[in-house]
C-alpha cells in the first residue's frame, strides 16, 4: 500500500525537443524521490540531454530515465547514484559522433538496469556501474560501423550482467568487471569484419563468466581473468577467417575454464594459464586449414588440462607448453589432414605429466618433450 502511494506521487519530468532542431540542451535533476520518471526526446543534430537522479528508488518495472535522440553529434547522459531498482534507457539513431553515457554508482547501488541502443556509425556508448554495485544489468546494442561500446562494473561488484551486441565493421566492445568482482557475467556478440572485443575480469575476481562470439573476418577477441582469480569461465567462438582469440587466466588463478572455437582459415587461438595457476582447463577447437593453436600452462602451474583439436585439410600448428615446475598436467592434441605440426613441452615437474597426440593424414609431424618428472606418459598415434 505504501509502495502504491509512493508511485502515485511520483515525479514525472518530461522534456521534448522540437523536431529537427539542433544545438539544444535539456537537463533534468531529481533527488531523493521514489518512483521518479524522467524522459527526454530530441530530434536533430548536436543536442545535449542530461538526467541526474540521486538517492532514488525505482520499482524494478518502470523506466526511471529515458533519452531518445535522432541526429548526429548528440550527447545523452544519465546519472543515477545510490540508487535501487532503477532503469535507464538511451536510444540514439544516426551519427556519427553520438555519445550515450549511463552512470549508476554506489555505494549500495543494486538491481539497476541500463540499456543503450545506437543505430549508425562512429558512435560511443558507455555504461558505468561501480562501487559496491550488485545485481545490475547493462546491455548495449549498436548497429553500424566504427562504433565503441564500453561497460564498467568494477570495485566490489557482484552478480552483474553485461551484454554487448554489435553488427558492422570496425567496432570495438569492452567490458570491465575488475577488483573483487564475483558472480558476474559478460557477453559480447559481434557480426562483421575487423571488430575488437575485450573482457577484463581481474584482481580477486571469481565465479565470473565471459563469453565472446564473433562472425566475419579479421576479428580480435580477448578475455583477461588474472591475479587471484578463480573458478572463472571464458568462452570464445569465432566463425570466418584471420581471427585472433586470446584468453589469459594467470597469476595465482585456479579452477578456471578456457574454451576457444574457431571455424575458418588462418585463425589464431591462444590461451595462457601461467604463474602458479592450477586446476585450470584449456580447450581449443579449430576447423579449417592454416590455423594456429597454442596453450601455455607454465611456471608453477599444476594439475592443468590442455586439449586441442584441429580438423580440416591440414597445415595447422598446435602447441602446448607446460613447463617450469609444472606437475600433474595433461595435454592432448588431435589433428586431421596433411602437413600438420603438433608439439607438447612438459618439463621440470616433480610429478608426472601426460601427453597424447593423434594425427590422421599424411606428412604430419608430432613431437613430445618431457623432462624431469616421475611417471610421465607420452602417446602418439599417426594414421
Amino acid at each position, binding site marked *: 500500500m505504501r509502495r502504491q502511494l509512493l508511485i502515485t506521487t511520483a515525479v514525472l519530468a518530461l522534456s521534448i525537443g522540437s523536431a529537427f532542431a539542433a544545438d539544444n540542451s535539456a537537463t533534468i535533476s531529481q533527488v531523493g524521490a521514489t518512483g521518479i520518471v524522467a524522459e527526454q526526446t530530441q530530434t536533430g543534430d548536436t543536442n545535449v540531454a542530461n538526467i541526474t537522479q540521486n538517492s532514488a528508488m525505482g520499482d524494478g518495472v518502470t523506466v526511471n530515465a529515458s533519452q531518445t535522440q535522432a541526429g548526429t553529434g548528440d550527447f545523452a547522459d544519465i546519472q543515477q547514484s545510490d540508487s535501487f531498482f532503477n532503469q535507464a534507457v538511451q536510444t540514439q539513431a544516426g551519427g556519427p559522433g553520438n555519445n550515450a553515457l549511463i552512470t549508476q554508482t554506489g555505494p549500495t547501488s543494486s538491481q539497476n538496469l541500463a540499456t543503450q541502443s545506437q543505430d549508425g556509425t562512429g558512435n560511443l556508448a558507455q555504461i558505468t556501474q561501480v562501487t559496491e554495485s550488485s545485481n545490475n544489468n547493462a546491455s548495449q546494442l549498436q548497429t553500424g560501423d566504427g562504433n565503441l561500446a564500453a561497460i564498467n562494473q568494477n570495485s566490489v561488484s557482484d552478480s552483474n550482467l553485461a551484454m554487448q551486441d554489435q553488427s558492422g565493421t570496425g567496432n570495438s566492445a569492452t567490458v570491465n568487471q575488475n577488483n573483487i568482482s564475483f558472480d558476474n557475467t559478460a557477453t559480447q556478440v559481434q557480426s562483421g569484419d575487423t571488430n575488437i572485443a575485450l573482457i577484463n575480469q581481474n584482481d580477486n575476481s571469481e565465479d565470473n563468466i565471459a563469453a565472446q562470439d564473433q562472425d566475419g573476418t579479421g576479428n580480435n577477441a580477448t578475455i583477461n581473468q588474472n591475479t587471484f582469480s578463480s573458478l572463472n569461465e571464458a568462452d570464445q567462438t569465432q566463425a570466418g577467417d584471420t581471427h585472433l582469440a586470446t584468453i589469459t587466466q594467470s597469476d595465482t588463478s585456479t579452477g578456471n575454464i578456457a574454451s576457444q572455437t574457431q571455424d575458418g582459415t588462418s585463425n589464431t587461438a591462444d590461451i595462457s594459464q601461467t604463474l602458479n595457476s592450477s586446476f585450470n582447463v584449456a580447450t581449443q577447437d579449430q576447423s579449417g586449414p592454416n590455423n594456429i593453436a597454442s596453450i601455455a600452462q607454465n611456471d608453477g602451474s599444476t594439475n592443468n588440462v590442455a586439449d586441442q583439436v584441429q580438423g580440416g585439410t591440414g597445415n595447422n600448428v598446435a602447441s602446448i607448453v607446460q613447463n617450469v615446475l609444472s606437475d600433474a598436467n595433461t595435454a592432448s592434441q588431435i589433428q586431421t589432414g596433411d602437413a600438420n605440426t603438433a608439439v607438447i613441452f612438459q618439463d621440470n615437474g616433480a610429478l608426472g605429466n601426460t601427453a597424447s597426440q593423434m594425427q590422421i*593424414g599424411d606428412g604430419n609431424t608430432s613431437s613430445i618433450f618431457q623432462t624431469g618428472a616421475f611417471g610421465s606418459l607420452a602417446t602418439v598415434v599417426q594414421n
Partner: protein
Amino acid sequence: MRIITVVLAVFLALGGGLAAAGENVASISQVGAIAAASSQAQAGTSNEASILQDLSIGNSALAIQTGTANKIAIDQAGSADSPSVLNSAAVAQQGTLNVAGVTQSGAGNLAGTFQFGNGNTANAIQRGSNNAVMQIQSGNGNTMAAEQYGDALGLIHIQEGNNLTNPGGQPGIRQFGQGGGAPVIVIQRN
C-alpha cells in the same frame, strides 16, 4: 612359434585398426624421468618414429608401425654418472622394407624388436650389464643384428622365413626356414 603368435596378437590389437598414411614423423623425448612411458603407433608408408629416454630409470618405450618403408628408433641413453637403468623398449613392425633400431645404455634394460613381413631390418645395441635382447622376424630376406657390451647378458633371436642365414655357434639364436643370403649379426663383448 608361440612367442610370435602372442606378439602378433598384441601387435594387431594395438595397431591393426589404423588407416594408412604416409610420411609422418613422430618424436618423443623424455629426459631425466622416472617410470615414464612412451608409445607411438603409425600406419602407412615412409613414416618415422623416434623415442629418446635419456638419463632415465624404469622407463618403457613402445613403437608400432604397419606399412612399408617405415623407420623406428628408440634410444634409452645415459651417461657414466647417470646411466639409464631398468628400462624396457619394444618395437613392432608389420609390412615390408621397415627398419627398427634400439639403443640402450645402462644396466637391467630389456629390448625387443618384432617384425612381420619381408625385407625388414632390425638392430639392437646395449651397453651395460644384466641386459637382454629379444628379436623376432617372420618373413623373407630380413636382416637382424644385435650388439651387447657388458656382463650377464641375454640374447634371443628368432627368424622365420627364407633366405636367412644361421651364423651358428651363438647362444640364444634360433632360425627356422631354408636358403640363405640375409645376414644375421650377433656380437657380444665383455
